């Protein structure tokens, strides 16, 4: 544990946001093993149970891709390219290994590029299925067992069911704490800004679960003591997308005169709502959370009797957020070359609009260099819904 208890939560979040991975690096220097992982689909409980330091990998929007393009095609999603570029430049050189889950083509089809060029002591491609029926749950459990075996071999230590059970508890607790912090955004105006929240979300995913929980608690206590700012007239915006992990986008929204009050992002709302159920075989609960409860575009949901039922199953949680956080408008922020999210834009847009909420769809690169254009579109959107 760090001396976090005595520190200012938001300040700490800010520091970990600005120096991403610095805590993992410290822990590495203390003799721990650090495993980087991509996306919301990596069952972080298992990494925690293995006793390693899990570090969710992020990209760096304000850094141009200078090395990665020599290895990876530009038709790959720009977020993945940014992370890879950072990795190949040595930004995560303290990592002992990495897990790449089968999220999308941009990850799956570049698996060899990562493993070969990074040459890490530990590497695992986790073959998560896209379909969520019963055989898929059984299959997911099989691939989790393979994953566990590779980790055990790497760490030279058994990963017991008890350890997994404890990790499940710790991560569920972490999720509850983060949801409590989200609750502080329900007031008008919210007690914590979207920019601050983004930094907390990013900082939290760079820490071992106990430290992440301590940080969230600190932030929550600090924010609760705040007096609500006076400006309650701003529009309340929700952002939807995959890995948006830069405060720059929240900044673009809030500097245009709105509050970013909630998100459905894979580093935020998407991962903090669903918990893992406690099941006799802990892998059952994990398989169900990652396949059935996570609402990400790369799992296929379509078993309903009607199209409308399918839409509810896919996007019903968005309606809950819209109501719960009193959202006035939604921004779909989708990266170029992202087939999973790109193909859902018309359906998702019309679903949200049918709830009476206007939607701005933005397709963009993963780069701050294009944000001026994005900001202009956001301003126009805010004017339109004013």
């Amino acid at each position, binding site marked *: 544990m760090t001396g976090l208890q005595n520190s200012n939560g938001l300040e700490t979040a800010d520091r970990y946001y600005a120096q991403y991975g610095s805590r993992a690096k410290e822990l590495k220097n203390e003799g721990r093993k650090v495993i980087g992982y991509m996306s919301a689909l990596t069952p972080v409980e298992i990494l925690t149970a293995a006793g390693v330091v899990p570090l969710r990998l992020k990209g760096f929007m304000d850094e141009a891709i200078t090395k990665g393009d020599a290895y990876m095609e530009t038709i790959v999603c720009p977020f993945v390219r940014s992370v890879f570029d950072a990795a190949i430049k040595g930004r995560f050189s303290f990592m002992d290994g990495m897990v790449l889950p089968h999220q999308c*083509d941009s990850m799956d089809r570049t698996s060899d590029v990562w493993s070969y060029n990074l040459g890490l002591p530990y590497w695992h491609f986790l073959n998560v299925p896209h379909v969520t029926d019963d055989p898929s749950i059984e299959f997911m459990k099989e691939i989790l067992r393979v994953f566990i075996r590779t980790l055990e071999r790497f760490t030279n230590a058994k990963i017991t069911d008890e350890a997994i059970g404890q990790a499940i508890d710790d991560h569920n607790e972490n999720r509850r704490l983060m949801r409590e912090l989200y609750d502080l955004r329900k007031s008008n105006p919210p007690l914590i800004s979207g920019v601050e929240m983004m930094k907390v979300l990013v900082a939290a995913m760079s820490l071992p679960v106990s430290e992440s929980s301590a940080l969230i608690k600190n932030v929550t206590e600090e924010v609760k003591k705040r007096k609500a700012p006076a400006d309650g007239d701003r529009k309340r915006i929700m952002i939807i997308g995959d890995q948006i992990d830069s405060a720059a986008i929240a900044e673009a929204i809030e500097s245009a005169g709105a509050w970013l009050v909630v998100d459905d992002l894979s580093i935020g709302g998407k991962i903090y709502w669903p918990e893992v159920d406690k099941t006799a075989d802990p892998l059952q609960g994990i398989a169900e959370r990652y396949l059935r409860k996570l609402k990400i575009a790369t799992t296929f949901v379509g078993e309903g009797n009607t199209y409308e039922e399918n839409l509810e199953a896919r996007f019903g949680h968005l309606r809950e957020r819209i109501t719960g956080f009193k959202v006035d408008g939604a921004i779909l922020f989708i990266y170029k070359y992202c087939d999973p999210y790109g193909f859902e834009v018309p359906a998702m847009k019309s679903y949200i609009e049918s709830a009476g909420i206007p939607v701005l769809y933005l397709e963009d690169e993963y780069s701050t260099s294009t944000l001026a254009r994005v900001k202009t579109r956001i301003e126009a959107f805010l004017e339109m819904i004013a």
Partner: protein
Amino acid sequence: MAEEKKRRAVATQTAAGIPKFVRGNLAATLKAKEEGKKVAKAFIHDGQDEIMRAMDIVPAWGESFSGICAAKRDAEKYLQKAESDNFSRSLCTYATCHIGFEMIREELGGVMPEGAPWGGMGRPDMILGNGQLLCDPRFKWPQALQHYLRDVPVFVTNMYYPPWDPNIDHHEQEGFYVRYCTEELHETVRFCERVTGKKMDWDRLAAVVELSDRTWDLFVDTYDLRKAIPTPMDTGDAMNTMVPITFNIGTQEAYDFYVELNNELKQKIAQGIGVANPEKYRIIWAAGLPSWFALNDFQYFNSKGAVFPVEVTYRDHEKIEKLDLPKTDDPLEHIAWRWVRYWTHWYDAARKIPGSTPKVARIIEYIGDYKCDGVVFHSAFSCRSWHAGIIHQAEVLRKVYGDIPILIMEGDIVDISSYNEADTHNRIDAFIETLDAYKNKKRN
């Protein structure tokens, strides 16, 4: 695969019969209604072909439809239609072209849009997708399409194979992968039974699967004839002759087609007739779907004495005996084994070449078997599935195989906007010069 504005000359007579196949497949979807058959929007290379054939379900191939639109250089209106409802231009253009077409038809109340290529494609009664490793559009395209065809049920199966990892024994994993694929195929059957209201005839399925196996073998034997020097057929033709095995597997017509092709190739070999005269350079088409609107580029290569005796694209088959499939009475389990082993048997090859990957091991095997002097990849921007990772393949190939000229061409499958014929020809010219220097160096 289809006819273009200006038809490319085909080196084999048999390939000239392909447009008939493609038209036939489209026509079947239109005729299905009169015959009381159901139409399924389906994907190639998804393991569901034999189920459809055995149940008299008529496949409507979206990829083929979009390929035809591209070859006719008539895809833009459909792409724009999809774009008008916020489908990005960076998404798979096979998908957006087809979705755009269906959007227009729905707006017309189900009437076939005017000018639809070759009479268009029938409206599906069901949509079959696949969440396999191969590509995201295989499950997102069905879902996106249902947004416009709300009454049409969608079923997405999952056909996974073990990922390549030199540190994990893939044979240990094959069992549970096959079990999963088999269960998923059974789910597909149950879904098709619900939609068609008919039960699967398992004997018929077994016969269809057996016919497929024979077609696989015949296809591989036939393509192996291209090892001859000069090669009697190159990739320009293979982008046509892949149609029966890709779209009509499990049918007698497909089998008969390869009998005919086999005979013709043998005849050409006996007479010493090659694609290029004289044949100066042999190149492998190492990855990538072609630009359907620019198949003439193959002829441009040929005009320089360069031929492609072999390609990786659409050659998704291997001799059944090489795959060493365990015996089973369940035809679906057989399909599953065939599928999984098709991928993993290259893993064994890769392990024998330290530092290699299965894709590269395959290229190396083909370079040797087909006596190639150079390697061409095509990187199509709208499909990550086959085209992300090409730089890496080229890099690994250089490292483990050594010095061989490599060209990576960039373009698209459907979207013509990024194509420039003059530039492409210039790049080909430069590559031919490299090939020439390489051959001279090898000779000395």
